[in-house]
């Protein structure tokens, strides 16, 4: 059936879309990755016709975040289908499902609002697996008559999935590969940029260029090196991994203070070295702990446990390091 979808008044609300990703889309993705206008990367919620769907075509559900919508439609290149965009306030599927905006209520409402019963003659919706924390499939069935079918985690696996409609165990697992971690770095960097500059300037006037560079190194270790090295850092907890990385990064700065001031008294050399080893690693460790929110495998129980275990250690180490700096500068 190749008739004009707009000819039927019932379908006049369906907007056309394609699988093509334009340069404007790519620019939008770039800005989203750098955290520019964070909640502004939205698609209008509703029903979209991908190429030339018929009433028998499949219906795919996604969030109204441009990265989510574009990942889905580009993965479906060469196919006809419907894309139902839920109003998740410009948030991706996984986070929106956690908050419940990608959820049973919104899905049932959107089915109603788009008159999906009249658009297609089947009663199946294909949802991304990571939407499941917000959607009760049996509840959707009860309320709307539509059967929820959870597809693979990644939209890119859809063509393979659609051949059999069975996801392999590999398709069902979240990955957090180097690439997945690398694309998170820009936004982490943007978050710390202003505090880092302020800290660097303040420390520059108090402790000089070397101390200022050490502070920048400790912060960059937390937001750039940490995501890259995550799986290879020893221990399981993010905080302990962060402490280890922080000590390694602080060590050259500390050694330079120890060996670089041969005229200073012994205790002043050791005191100066200790300030670096005490004050800087907690900064790296704290940023590392914060990275738990960006991952797809840390449980809330575990993170809560980390907070109560490590935050006091971070606070004490940082406090003693700062106090030592003040004492050394006074005498």
């Amino acid at each position, binding site marked *: 059936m190749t008739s004009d979808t707009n000819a039927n008044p019932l379908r006049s609300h369906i907007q056309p879309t394609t699988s093509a990703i334009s340069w404007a889309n790519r620019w939008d993705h770039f800005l989203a990755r750098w955290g520019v206008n964070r909640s502004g990367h939205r698609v209008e919620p509703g029903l979209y016709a991908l190429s030339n769907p018929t009433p028998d075509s499949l219906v795919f559900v996604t969030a109204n975040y441009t990265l989510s919508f574009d990942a889905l439609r580009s993965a479906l290149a060469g196919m006809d289908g419907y894309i139902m965009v839920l109003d998740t306030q410009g948030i991706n599927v996984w*986070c929106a*499902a*956690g*908050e*419940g905006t990608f959820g049973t209520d919104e899905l049932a409402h959107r089915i109603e609002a788009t008159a999906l019963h009249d658009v297609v003659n089947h009663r199946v919706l294909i949802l991304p*697996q*990571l939407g*499941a*924390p*917000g*959607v*009760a*499939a*049996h509840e959707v069935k009860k309320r709307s008559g539509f059967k929820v079918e*959870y597809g693979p*985690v990644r939209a890119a696996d859809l063509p393979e999935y659609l051949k059999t409609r069975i*996801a392999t*165990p590999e398709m*069902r*697992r*979240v990955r957090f590969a180097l690439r997945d971690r690398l694309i998170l770095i820009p936004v982490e960097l943007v978050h710390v940029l202003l505090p880092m500059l302020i800290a660097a300037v303040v420390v520059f006037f108090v402790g000089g260029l070397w101390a200022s560079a050490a502070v920048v190194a400790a912060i960059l270790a937390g937001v750039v090196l940490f995501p890259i090295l995550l799986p290879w850092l020893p*221990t*399981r*907890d*993010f905080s*302990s991994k962060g402490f280890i990385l922080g000590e390694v990064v602080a060590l050259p700065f500390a050694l330079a203070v120890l060996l670089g001031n041969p005229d200073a008294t012994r205790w002043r050399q050791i005191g100066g070295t200790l300030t670096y080893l005490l004050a800087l690693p907690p900064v790296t460790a704290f940023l590392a*702990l*914060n990275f*738990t*929110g960006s*991952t*797809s*495998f*840390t*449980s*809330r*129980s*575990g*993170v*809560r*446990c*980390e*907070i*109560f*275990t490590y*935050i006091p250690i971070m606070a004490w180490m940082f406090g003693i390091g700062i106090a030592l700096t003040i004492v050394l500068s006074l005498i």
Partner: protein
Amino acid sequence: MFNAYVVNTLQYNPELCIGCEMCSLVCPHAVFAMNERVAQLVRPEACMECGACQLNCPTDAIMVDSGVGCASAMIYAALTGKKEATCGSSETEPSCCSSYR
């Protein structure tokens, strides 16, 4: 030591399982696997408490205190005394580490 993630709130009652497979389909960490007729907990320590299995279990055989494991949101909540911005139903009580080794 140095592993805060050995304990979580996931609980499963196999006696209520009707073998619909939903938990094993929705879990992104392969915590559940099907064993002939019912689901089995095979990797409980990998649970990240997203709550997908509980929400999609039609017989309430699964219980998990779901929420987002995000340190900054939890620290903010602890400092301001407010509930975590990202979690729905459960209250926060600062007593997690009782069973932590």
